[in-house]
């Protein structure tokens, strides 16, 4: 049961993490700072899940990655792009709709 829950949770996380990243990156951030921020929110993300996701979002033009070369060693910062903002708005709509549906069905079930 725990295994099954874990595997469904992984699937749910996949979509949710994309949305979360697009929301968080309203402010520029670099990879490990995001992992820490999510952890502080009580949301555990493996680094080797987040970083490839950032790369995919970058390839799709939803996030822009920029190497910062002024510091002691190169560091990559990420920020949401205008296309990413549009995508985020669409995803938030879907997420809200899904949330409403679940709440409605749970409420209806209570009356049965």
């Amino acid at each position, binding site marked *: 049961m725990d295994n099954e829950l874990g595997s469904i949770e992984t699937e749910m996380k996949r979509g949710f993490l994309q949305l979360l990243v697009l929301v968080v990156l309203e402010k520029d951030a*670099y*990879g*490990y*700072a995001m992992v*820490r921020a999510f952890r502080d929110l009580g949301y555990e993300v*493996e*680094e*080797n*899940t987040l*970083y*490839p996701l950032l*790369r*995919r979002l970058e390839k799709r033009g939803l996030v822009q990655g920029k190497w910062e070369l002024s510091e002691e*060693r*190169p*560091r*990559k910062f990420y920020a949401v792009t205008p296309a990413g903002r549009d995508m985020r708005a669409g995803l938030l709509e879907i997420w809200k709709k899904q949330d409403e549906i679940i709440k409605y069905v749970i409420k209806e079930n209570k009356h049965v």
Partner: protein
Amino acid sequence: MYKNLESYLEEISHFLSDPGEREEILSEIRSHIMEKIEHEGGPVTEGALEKVIATYGRPRQVAEKYLDGRPIIAPAFTRHLFRYASLLFAVHLVFIVFAVIFKKSFIVFPFLFVPRLGVIGAVLYMPMAFLADFGAVAMMLYFITRSGKEIKLPWPKFALDLDEVKATDAKTAAAQVATMVGAGIMLALTGLAVTLYIKYQTIFFISTNFSKFRPLFMPAPGRTLSLIVIIMLAAGTLGLLVKLFTRSRRIACWVDAGADAVALVLMGVVLRQPYANLLAVRIPPALHSWLHITLTVTLLFVALMIAVDLVANVVRLGRKRLGK
């Protein structure tokens, strides 16, 4: 430059197929690992790197996350891969049989090249032929997958899957009785053939009057052909007996495939027998070439049927294994 970090990155690089992206991905991973160490307050040392690398994931696992889950061959084509490969192999097998019988090589450019083969050579060549066919089909499906185009591939019907054969059909009481009767008859025939062979060194006669024994073939080919028929009868009997005592369709399929393989090899030996000095009886010269052709065509046809049945059984076994 940290040795353990570089060796970790190098191992990851072996799994990244796109050369354009490889360096960028490795730079990102290097940067992420360094960030983590700095964030956790410690100086960057080989020891600190070792700890972070251990929690970062195994190289293959890390690389796979960057590969975007793109399969080499779309999962939807898995059944096509095995079906097409088995069909191509069936065609290949026909050419292998031809190569043995006609002692010639065959080329069907660019897919098939079958060299001139002996029987043993043909048996050893078959697994290589299957691998070549499997590879050719895999390559075709790889390019189709890569193209991303919606290509509708034909679905040839060839050989029922094991799970498409209804168990009830295979194991009704009538089928059981038929198998039992068949096994009994085959056992009797094998016994008779062995008895005749022990007594006369051949099982082929042109007269049933044993006081005036007249063999059909000359002594040497007569012995070879008799032994071949006895082995075929024994293999058939063994197959029926195994089927009688097992309910597993898989085992029955293995038995059939084994019997087919043995029969195919023996048919090859029969076809290699020189026709001259084969018969021990006089036949009008005008009939000689007609008889030779008729015999060759008949044996060739039987060999092809056995080959097709062998391929069908192998395909069934392969598909069942795939489905598990």
